[in-house]
């Protein structure tokens, strides 16, 4: 029994890590550009399928390195061709546009790679359980958690220590001033978008090894990511991270006791947070108005 609980909680933690990776990308784009990127799940799926396609040639590690970058490049192209036109307009339009893109991505991946679930192999030595008592602790799962941790630390280093990150953070607070100070805001938004999509692609490469590779993989992860942002606090990246992990673990715990409510519980959490603390756990005051 303890094993079962641990299993589900650990599962929840991993899923929560995916939510967090995805939600961080969404948050970056939302905070700087005011765009809710509904197609984020589509980019995640794209990353996973890129990895699948190149794996026979590059192996798992090569795919892990290259696929997210390719996804980010697709993201940059989409931003340049479509989303860029909608900055500064009613957020309704970018939401509708990315909504349409989500359709196209899901259907496109289905068209190219087929509707069925594809075999997605991870290196064998990663897939063996580390101990017989804790059968669920495969190396791959630990590795995923580790990689998510590395990615998140990397992201925060970029945001804290580099010029680009500083500008992103400044732009989140006051884009006009940043623009007046001579920063190329267009480029900043593009790079920021690319960074967000890179995280989605990375999440995709990792998630496919655990959740299975099918065209709907992105759609099933995007809604919880929205919840993660709201629970964690609008405008706060550490909050988003916390929110993702929290709802992942919560749905893991609930799976043990009442498995059919494992999806609904995160929305209950969101309702409670909105009731008690509308700006979210770590949200900044005044972001809502």
């Amino acid at each position, binding site marked *: 029994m303890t094993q079962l609980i641990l299993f589900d909680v650990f599962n929840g933690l991993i899923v929560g890590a995916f939510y967090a990776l995805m939600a961080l990308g969404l948050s970056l784009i939302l905070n700087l550009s005011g765009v*809710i990127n509904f197609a984020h799940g589509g980019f995640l799926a794209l990353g996973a399928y890129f990895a699948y396609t190149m794996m026979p040639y590059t192996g798992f590690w090569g795919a892990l390195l290259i696929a997210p970058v390719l996804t980010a490049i697709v993201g940059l192209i989409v931003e340049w061709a479509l989303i860029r036109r909608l900055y500064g307009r009613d957020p*309704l339009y970018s939401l509708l546009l990315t909504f349409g893109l989500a359709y196209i991505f899901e259907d496109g991946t289905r068209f190219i790679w087929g509707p069925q679930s594809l075999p997605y192999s991870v290196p064998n030595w990663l897939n063996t359980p580390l101990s017989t008592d804790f059968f669920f602790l495969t190396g791959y799962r630990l590795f995923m958690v580790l990689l998510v941790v590395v990615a998140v630390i990397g992201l925060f280093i970029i945001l804290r220590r580099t010029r680009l990150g500083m500008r992103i953070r400044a732009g989140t607070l006051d884009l006009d001033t940043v623009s007046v100070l001579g920063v190329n805001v267009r480029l900043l938004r593009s790079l920021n978008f690319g960074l967000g999509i890179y995280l989605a692609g990375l999440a995709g490469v990792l998630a496919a090894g655990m959740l299975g590779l099918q065209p709907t993989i992105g759609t099933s992860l995007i809604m919880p990511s929205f919840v993660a942002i*709201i629970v964690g606090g609008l405008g706060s990246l550490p909050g988003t991270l916390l929110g993702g992990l929290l709802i992942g673990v919560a749905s893991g715990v609930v799976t043990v006791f009442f498995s059919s409510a494992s999806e609904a519980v995160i*929305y209950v959490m969101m309702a409670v947070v909105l009731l008690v603390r509308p700006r979210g756990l770590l949200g900044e005051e005044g972001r809502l108005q």
Partner: protein
Amino acid sequence: MIELNRRSVSALIWILLLALPYWLPWVGGYQELGTRVLIMALAAMSLNFLLGFTGVLSFGHAAYFGLGAYGVAMSLKFIAPSTPLGILVGVLTGTLAAAIIGALIVRLRGVYFAMVTIAFGQVFYFIAFRWNDVTGGDDGLGGWRRQPLDFGFAQIDILGNDKAFYYLVLVLFALAVGVMAALLRAPFGRTLLAIRENERRARFLGIPVELHIWLSFVISCLFVSLAGTLYALLSNFTDPRALRWDMSGNFVIIAVLGGMRSFWGPLIGAAIFVVLQDYISSQTENWMSFIGLFFVLVVLFFPRGVLGIIRRRVSS
């Protein structure tokens, strides 16, 4: 002159709707398609009450649409075989849920409001999807039929007669649209417009902004759940897709396509969207890509909608 114009446009629309069962077959349509256009139009016009006339973006209206659908289905299946009772149950369910969720979210604005409505929309989807014993899960809830209307002195067979059902939908549509139009003309509606145009100024004038947005949200959801009940009655069936996020997206694109700033816009948007969807999904398996492309094209080239463009042409 413009006033006269507007009135004659309204009259023309009502005449077209009244005579629809008689001219639709001539242009290659079928009765169910016409009824579906009207139902989607009602849903989108209700959304537009909030979106176009209060300036609040909800991307989760499918939840209340679907609650209406499930409400009527369950009422007919489990409580009593009465269509009016079913509609009442459906509308009450949707409105109640909207009143509760609305109270949680009225303090959020803009993108954040949209995001929370998207997320909340999913709760009901998962409930319908997971609670197999009651909702039928993914297979949907069938095994019930809409029942003939019984007025005591007369019966109307809305089950066997498609035209009769269309006219029932039209009557309810007219009622709903009439109420919304009257509300928008009343001081309440003017206040909503004021909030849309400048929320801060409205607040300084002493208007309880949150209360008005909440009321607008609840009214909008009331009529959306009415549309949902009719949607379920139309096919004598409902499934979780009726309350999934893509349905919410359809409502918004219909409103935008027709013209958010105009009262009748969503009706025109619904006609275009439903017919197009019907045609594309009969032609290709990859209809999702085409609908997605359609979204992108509308946003890039028709952000003001069909009526917005016509109006600009006329005024220039």
